[in-house]
C-alpha cells in the first residue's frame, strides 16, 4: 500500500475516463472543475451546505465537495452535462424554463441533478417529498415554489409519456402556474 501526497486517479466523468494527479486533500469538486473541466458543476460554499456541486457519484446523488478526489479513483461520475441526453433530464430542463424556476441560474445545475435523482427513485412524489428531495440545495433567488412547480410538471409529463397517467390526479398535484402550464402542455398546446 502506497502513501502518497500526489495521488494518481482515473475517474470516469460523463462517460470519459479522465486520468489526473490530485493532491491528497483535494475534493472531487476540485478535480471536476480544475482537472476534468466539468465547469457545469458549481462551487458555492465548498463545505457541504449549498448543493451547487451535486453530481451522481457511484450511482447516488452527492455533494462533490464532500468526496475526496483520491477516494473517487475508479469511480463513475455524472454531472448535469452527462445527463442531458436523458429524457427525464430534458423534461426537467424544459419544465424549469416553463415555470420560471431559473433566475440567476447558479443553483440550477445542482438543483437539476438532485431533482433528477429524486424522480429516478420516486417517479410520482408528493410536493412534500419534492421539498425533502431538494432540501440539500439552496436557491437564493426563486423561493423554491417555482422549482417545486417545475419538478411537478416534469414528473407529470413523465407519467404521461409512461402511459400510466391519470390527468385528474396529476392536476391535483400541480399548483398554480404549473397547473396552467401543464394543462397547456398536456392538452396539446405545446
Amino acid at each position, binding site marked *: 500500500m502506497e502513501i502518497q*501526497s500526489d495521488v494518481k486517479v482515473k475517474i470516469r466523468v460523463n462517460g470519459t475516463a479522465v486520468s489526473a494527479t490530485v493532491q491528497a486533500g483535494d475534493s472531487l469538486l476540485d478535480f471536476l472543475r480544475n482537472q476534468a473541466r466539468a465547469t457545469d458543476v458549481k462551487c458555492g460554499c465548498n463545505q457541504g451546505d449549498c448543493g451547487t456541486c451535486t453530481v451522481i457519484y457511484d450511482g447516488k446523488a452527492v455533494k462533490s465537495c464532500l468526496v475526496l478526489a483520491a477516494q473517487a479513483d475508479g469511480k463513475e461520475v455524472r454531472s448535469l452535462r452527462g445527463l442531458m441526453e436523458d429524457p427525464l433530464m430534458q423534461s426537467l430542463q424544459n419544465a424549469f424554463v416553463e415555470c420560471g424556476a431559473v433566475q440567476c441560474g447558479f443553483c440550477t445545475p445542482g438543483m437539476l441533478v*438532485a431533482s433528477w435523482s*429524486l424522480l429516478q427513485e420516486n417517479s410520482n412524489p408528493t410536493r412534500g417529498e419534492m421539498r425533502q428531495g431538494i432540501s*440539500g440545495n439552496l436557491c437564493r433567488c426563486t423561493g423554491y415554489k417555482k422549482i417545486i412547480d417545475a419538478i411537478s410538471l416534469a414528473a407529470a409529463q413523465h407519467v404521461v409519456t409512461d402511459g400510466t397517467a391519470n390527468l385528474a390526479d396529476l392536476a391535483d398535484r400541480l399548483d398554480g402556474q404549473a397547473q396552467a402550464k401543464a394543462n397547456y402542455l398536456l392538452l396539446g398546446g405545446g
Partner: protein
Amino acid sequence: MLHYSFCKPGHLIEALQVLSEYGGRARIAAGCSNLLPDLKARHLQDCLLVDISELEGLRGIQAEGDWATVGSLTTIAELAVSPLLREGAPLLWQACQSFGDPLVRNRATLGGNLGHASPAADTAPPLLAMEASVATESLSGGRREFPIAELFAGPGRTNLRPGELILSLRFPLFQGKHEAFVKFGLRDAMAISLASAALSLRLHDGLMQDVRLAYGSLAATPFRATRTEECLTGMPFNEETLSLASAQAQGEVRPITDVRASSSYRRQLAGALLRQAARAALS
C-alpha cells in the same frame, strides 16, 4: 504546515497497521462529510488520510434474533430506508429521517457520525437510549466492545485509543416500547440541531417504567439524563409529572452558548423537547 497524504488500505489489518504506525497523525476517512469541510477550513494540518470507505465487512445491517449489528460504514441513507430499523429500532430510524439532507445522507456514515463526536451527532441520543454497544479494533489492543456512553469524551473527542477503529454498533430490536426522537433546529433540513432528545419507556398499569432519555447538543457530549429518567419512573403520564421532569431536565443539562443559541435558551429546550418527545411517544 499544511501537508496531507493519502492511502487506501486493501483490508482491515492493513488499515489497523497504518493507523497504529502513524498514531495521532493518521485520520480515518469514511464518508468525508465532516472531514473535507475540516480540511478546507484548515482545522486539520499535516495528516495522513486513511481511506476506509471500501473496506470489506464494515457495511450493512444484520439481525440476529432480537439484536441488530450495524457496520460502521453503513450510510445514514441506508439506515433511513431499512424496514428492519423502522419496525425494530424506531428511535434510530427517526433520527435518520431528519438527518442532514438526502445528498449528505448518501455519504454520511454511522461510524463517522460517532467518530466525529459532535455533541449534536444525531445518531447518538437514540443509540444511548437503546444502550447500544460499540465494537472496535486496534492493532495493539485487539477487539473490544463497550457501552456507547463510554465513547464520548468531549466536543469532537472520543475515548478511542490511538489507532482504534469503530467496527460496528450493536443494539436490541423490537423492544416494544413507546419511543420518540425529536430534534429542534433553525431550519427543517440540513441544520445542525440546537437540541435533540430520544425517549423510550413502557407503561405498566398507567405508570412509566424502563425510562431512557438521552439528549444531544445540551452538554459537552451526547448523554443520558439519568436523574430525569428516575424522576419519570413509576409516575403516571400527566401534566404534573411532565412539569416536574422538565424542571429536573433543565437542571440536569449543561448546555453552552454558541453562535446558534444561548445556554439559557437551550436549557428551556431541554424541558420543551422532553414534553414533545413524551407526547409523541405516547400518542
